[in-house]
């Protein structure tokens, strides 16, 4: 009966799913971190640092959006 279970898919799921979850998490954490620290730097008048931190936040937005798009592709490609 155990032979009925796709063990390869199970093993792949065991590492791919946490990796996907981690990608989404890191992406949004970069957005929150970048935006928060940029606001602090801006308040202190450190424009260049603020800009760099905003770039980190923007990278997070791009990564997060990409993850959402991949999710949508997975949903639509089921058919």
């Amino acid at each position: 009966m155990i032979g009925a279970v796709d063990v390869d898919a199970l093993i792949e799921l065991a590492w791919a799913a946490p990796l996907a979850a981690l990608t989404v998490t890191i992406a949004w954490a970069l957005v929150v971190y970048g935006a928060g620290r940029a606001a602090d730097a801006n308040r202190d008048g450190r424009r260049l640092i603020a800009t760099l931190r905003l770039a980190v936040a923007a990278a997070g937005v791009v990564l997060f959006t990409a993850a959402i798009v991949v999710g949508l592709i997975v949903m639509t490609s089921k058919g």
Partner: protein
Amino acid sequence: MDSEIIILVIVVATALVFDFTNGFHDAANAVATSISTRALAPKTAVGLSAVLNFAGAFISLEVAATVASGIVEAKLITTTVIFAGLIGAILWNVLTWYFGLPSSSSHALIGGVVGAAFAAGGTDAVLGQGLLEKVMVPAVVAPIVAFLAAALCILVTYRIVGRLRPGLVNSGYRVGQIASASLLSLSHGTNDAQKTMGVITLALVAHGTLDGADAEPPTWVIVSAAAAIALGTYSGGWRIIRTLGTRIYKMDPAQGFAAQGGGAAVLLTASHLGFPLSTTHSITGAVLGAGAARRLSAVRWGLAGNIAIAWILTLPAAALVGAATYGISRIFGTGVVGPLLISLSLLMLMAALFGKRVRRGPAMTTAPADV
């Protein structure tokens, strides 16, 4: 109108009632954490989820044309078996809603059909390998993988944003939760509305209205299934929302995001690998993981145990009701009397149950103050 047409109408109506309870029951999966962390107002959350469930039903039309395919002998699937399976699933959904326990509507449906098929054809009707592969293994894998993924996510999150001002972090994650809840709702619509479409399509094939080979669901089936699940979602299963959102532990927005984002990532990865998991199992596992990783004692493990017991009981309990429904229906022969009497009894039972709840407060249409 001959009796077969009347039975078909009863099966279609019962399938739509199941779809409604599916949305009603599973709305919690997508929105509970968003509501509890105040990322979204309760009515806004279920409204958004309802719209996305409706839209999701149209995104992928991979119809589960043979619900429980590979789990029960296809040749035993008749309209009466489908009807009995649906009754088993509906009763289990209503019962678990009453006790505020998140459980898988899909497993309830499979359980109901398995029980009815067993009553119709004996042990040969149930395919053990399919049951193991498509129900039991995913039921164990989903919560474990989601638990670990969400735990990892929240630890990494706290590592990255832990030194920022809490107000800023909470605001940021509330915004993120709107996106993650939306993705979950859309994913739920693509998965679960399909099952009802599949059930109705199967009934139409069994009746002979549709040709069995490559039967596609008619437009009215797609629209009605999408509308039923959206209406159910909009009604809001507040009891389960409260369980997932606040009763397991009091979560912060970052934990809510980790649970939703982690759970959605696990679900979609599994779907991509052709290993479909239960939304309920995945999200509940993720909620527990996001709480336990922060502080093990914060989680109400007794409640988590009750949920696990409900999961274990889902298949046999729904199967028992499915088998009993089939048996009772057959007492009245193969005609319309059995399904009609059972449908009327179910309607009266549900009206009494909901009436009791509504008399005690606006449980159906208003979110409780503590959600």
